[in-house]
């Protein structure tokens, strides 16, 4: 039975830890964590902490928001490739215009505590 769950990932964020799963078979690191290695098919994975620095692969600045974020517009969100290898999505804090950042910009993780949960965000480094 896997413990590589969405809930476990979110629980680790509360401790300001970005935790992925590393395949014991081929060494591939998956973030978010997964129960099955998509590289080699192994189901034998272990928790691994991932460093929160990386580079922006793709991004947008959203003006038409989700209901939950309607008080936040405009806000930036992007896909960040962490220096440890894997990529993850997160809001990019402090950015309200598409010209302020670019694909390739350096990013650093920030843990934002909300009512119910802690979310993984980034800020230009």
């Amino acid at each position, binding site marked *: 039975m896997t413990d590589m769950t*969405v809930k476990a990932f979110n629980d680790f964020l509360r401790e300001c830890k970005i935790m992925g799963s590393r395949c014991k078979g081929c060494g591939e690191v998956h*973030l*978010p964590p997964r129960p099955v290695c*998509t590289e080699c098919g192994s189901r034998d994975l272990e928790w691994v902490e991932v460093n929160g620095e990386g580079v922006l*692969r*793709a*991004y*947008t*600045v*959203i*003006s*038409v*928001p*989700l*209901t*939950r*974020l*309607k008080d*936040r517009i*405009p*806000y930036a*969100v*992007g*896909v*960040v490739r962490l220096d440890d290898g*894997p*990529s*993850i*999505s*997160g*809001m990019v804090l402090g950015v309200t*215009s*598409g010209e302020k950042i*670019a*694909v*390739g910009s350096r990013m650093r993780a920030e843990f934002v505590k909300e009512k119910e949960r802690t*979310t*993984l965000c980034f800020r230009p480094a």
Partner: protein
Amino acid sequence: MKLSRGVAVVGAGMTQFHHRIHADKASRELFVDAAFEAVDSVDNGVELDDIEALFVGNFSSDLFERQTHTAALMADWLGLNPKPSTRVEDACASSGVAVNMGVLAVASGAYDVVMVGGVEKMRNLSTEETTDTLAMAADGAYEVGAGFTFPGLYAALASAHFARYGSTWEQLAAITVKNHHNGALNPKAHFQSEIMETASKMGERQGLAFRDELEFLRSPLNPVVAYPLRLFDCCPVSDGAAAVILAAEDVARRFTDTPVHVRGIGQASDAMALHDRAELTALRATKLASSQAYKMAGVEAADIDVADVHDCFTIAEVLATEDLGFFPKGEGGKAAAEGRTALDGDRPVNPDGGLKAKGHPVGATGAAMAYEMFKQLRGEAGRHQVDGATTGLVQNVGASGATVVVQVYGR
């Protein structure tokens, strides 16, 4: 993959796609309209009793109409009971996948004749509720949780494409202008006006005049939805339905002398979340699904005379025309700006206006693409006919590319 029995389209129908004219109709009535147009389109006639099974693509009547069990409801309202009915949900590729399911069902020998359709009644919700509902097709925990909207995902793909290949928003604007031009020639389209016509109308209300399309598209009347994508880079939210009738090749001639043959089909899945993909400047599932379909059909990209591709956002048409092999990687935007994908270009794409102008009632789109190929390859597409088209392709994408389905059709 090989079909053990040939399959052809013998009839097709669709409602107009629109945001307002179907206000008093529910999914069931839209579907009945499209389905009976398909029945009535069959040259030598088809009886409802000839149809042995129904496949219905639908994304989320659950949230749009608080109604599930959609396929059974459609079968019931069509008077098709007790024939089996099956709903297919693969986000925006729902009815494109349903077409493949119908083809496989006939090819298997289980049925000789089936109906495949799609329907979505989207305009019951507010803009924010619609944004939330469409975002459900992305990874809820890790993409929507991070703040991505559905337009936001394609905007991110655009940012990666711009950065790697130097493609530009102006190239995307050329796709907007082209697809609105085509939509203006299509009586089934949601938007049937040229961009300049729209610009004059919208400008008049604000006391503004525009010299050309780009001036309008750069103006505040075309606000940013998700940078770099603006309102006119996005398909509209539409109501509508479409349906086709598929028959085994060995019985198709009973129904028509000019069936449209399903030459090849393909389908592939990819990582749900963009962050789990190695490449953000292409949809891998498009490459895989199309290579399957080309191989089955025994054709190459260069043999495609006309294509309906999934331009839910203008950048998606760039990705599609590259990943389908119409243009070298990185040159889809440039090719569009040069007019190569126009009705009279060397690679006509989305002659019906595409999702951009024809509209995108999510679950109906794949079936509406099959409808378009039925018309195009029989030379019945009217003012947006691609002259002499004999081989056509459909590419229907689920959400940001976790599902892609392709069909190659031939005369």
